[in-house]
């Protein structure tokens, strides 16, 4: 846990504070993204946590210990630190870079080197190939991964990351972000992460702290920030398409109609038409004996048709999984020019369906109660 209490910083030769009475708490194992325009005090706030910058006033706690009680050098060895320029030491091999903190902490060499190899494995870089290389022999993306590994090598509970993926091209950035989130699901660090990219923040954050001129203007979950911006500064900053951004945060499961009506191959078209009419649906999904989706029948076909559903169905053009995000779902709908999708779990079982209407209703609900 990281807790800031009324922390301020005014630099010498300056009259206005760079950070102004910031109070916020990052719960254990969560990622807090500090977000805001350039110069709003994100980096300054972060550097006060590992005392690269000393606060002018206020207190900062890690766990329940006040950081002011530590020797700054000792404190920093217990906090992982990643910067945008990566800062791998060009004179050291990848192995020695990763083992930097374990080495200064006096770990046994065999233990730290084994740890380096294990970490490389974790990001799918072959230890045999990379341990003895120098940073200049790696691509930017690989260097950035090593930068992160170096920060977690000594297994610090807390991680500070200042625009760690800022220098990477958009495509690789997405990949590294995903990889990092997967890693975080395993290692569960408490992370303070600086970004000025709202999309990155929405993707990475458990909570977002929005800064303006050194003040913390809103601290909330990404969905709440997008759905209920506290002031016009926040809504302007997150952008006019903030509702679309919310689609990434919501899953199909949130908008899905659960346990919907269905028919089997043995039912007659008349039965199918009757069920659709009863629920006001334009189509109905056919399931097999174990609940697997087999296809669907349209109302126009069923109405007035004769015979079994099994002889008149069409295959489903596409499906989604309940765990996928709504952005993917909507995109799939647009791509296939349909207004509803059957939701199928990993076993192929029919779980329900989402429609464009159910999605818009879900999005607007949040605005109504706000």
């Amino acid at each position, binding site marked *: 846990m990281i807790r800031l209490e009324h922390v301020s910083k005014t630099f010498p030769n300056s009259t206005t504070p760079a950070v102004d009475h910031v109070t916020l708490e990052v719960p254990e194992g969560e990622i807090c993204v500090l977000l805001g325009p350039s110069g709003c005090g994100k980096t300054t706030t972060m*550097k006060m946590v*590992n005392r*690269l910058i000393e606060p002018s006033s206020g207190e900062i706690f890690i766990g329940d210990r006040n950081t002011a009680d530590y020797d700054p*050098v*000792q*404190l*920093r*060895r*217990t*906090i992982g*630190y990643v*910067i945008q*320029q*990566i*800062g791998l*030491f*060009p*004179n*050291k*091999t990848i192995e020695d870079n990763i083992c*930097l*903190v374990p080495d*200064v902490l006096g770990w046994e060499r065999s233990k730290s080197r084994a740890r380096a190899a294990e970490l490389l494995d974790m990001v799918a870089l072959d230890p045999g190939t990379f341990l003895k290389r*120098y*940073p*200049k022999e790696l691509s930017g993306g690989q260097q950035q991964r090593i930068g992160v590994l*170096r*920060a977690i090598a000594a297994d610090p509970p807390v991680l*500070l990351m200042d625009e760690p993926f800022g220098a990477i091209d958009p495509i690789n950035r997405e990949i590294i972000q995903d990889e990092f989130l997967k890693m975080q699901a395993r290692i569960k660090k408490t992370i303070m992460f600086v970004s000025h990219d709202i999309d990155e923040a929405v993707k990475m954050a458990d909570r977002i702290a929005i800064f303006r001129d050194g003040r913390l203007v809103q601290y909330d979950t990404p969905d709440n920030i997008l759905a209920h911006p506290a002031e016009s500064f926040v809504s302007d900053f997150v952008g006019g398409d903030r509702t679309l951004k919310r689609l990434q945060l919501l899953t199909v499961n949130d908008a899905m109609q659960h346990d919907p009506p269905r028919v089997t191959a043995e039912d007659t078209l008349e039965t199918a038409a009757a069920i659709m009419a009863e629920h006001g649906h334009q189509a109905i999904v056919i399931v097999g004996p174990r609940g697997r989706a087999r296809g669907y029948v349209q109302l126009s076909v069923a109405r007035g048709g004769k015979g079994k559903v099994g002889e008149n169905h069409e295959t489903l053009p596409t499906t989604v999984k309940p765990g996928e995000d709504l952005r993917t779902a909507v995109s799939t709908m647009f791509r296939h020019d349909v207004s509803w999708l059957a939701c199928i779990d990993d076993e192929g079982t029919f779980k329900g369906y989402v429609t464009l209407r159910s999605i818009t209703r879900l999005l607007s609900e949040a605005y109504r109660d706000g």
Partner: protein
Amino acid sequence: MDEQAAVADIRQWWRGGLYILIFSLGAWAWGSGLLPVLLDHWDDITFLGRQHIQLVAISGGLAILIGVPAGVALTRSRFRRYGDVAMQVLNIGATIPTLAVLALSMSLLGIGNTPAIFALFIASLLPIVGNTMAGIRAVPPYLRESARGMGLSPRQILWQVELPNALFVIYAGIRTALAINVGTVPLAFLIGGGGLGELIFSGIALNQFGTMLAGAIPTALLAIVVDFIVTQFQFWTIPRGVNPMR
């Protein structure tokens, strides 16, 4: 692998060429009567050569031992504000001809070995201090910051980050300094410092071509050898990741 074979090939050729060159030079030297003259002066050459090497080793060694730490000190936070002034002084100092430095040293310390060593030391010191400072200042600030942020002490940052990354530039300073040093030592004779300058200057004064060459050729060889040694150090002691030579 092909590339390496090609490089090895070129090296072989180059070595072969060198042998032929040395051989023909030797033949020419013998034929023209130069070699006999050098052999005539052999005792002088060994005696004065040893003096000469001593002058280089003591003044150059002192300049390295004092110059590098001084350059480092001028980049530490405590003395950093003097850094710019020092840099300017060094730059101005470097424009003073070494002969003038010798003369000044003599006017200060009189005639003999000591003023010669002192003058050579001063002339070598400037590039070493200057390059040490420049090398350390050129280490990108974000390297220092990430080192500090991960909990390295100032001393660890110096030894593990700043010095290794500045080493190439520091060596370049040492190389320049020693080149100046070796080039100036013959002049030390003028203030009574001894060395191979004695043969060169007497040769010139007495119009004895052979005597002059007996001083000049070993002096030139020494310059080449010293440069070779520094290059080897540069090659082997700078980590591969920051060594432009590998």
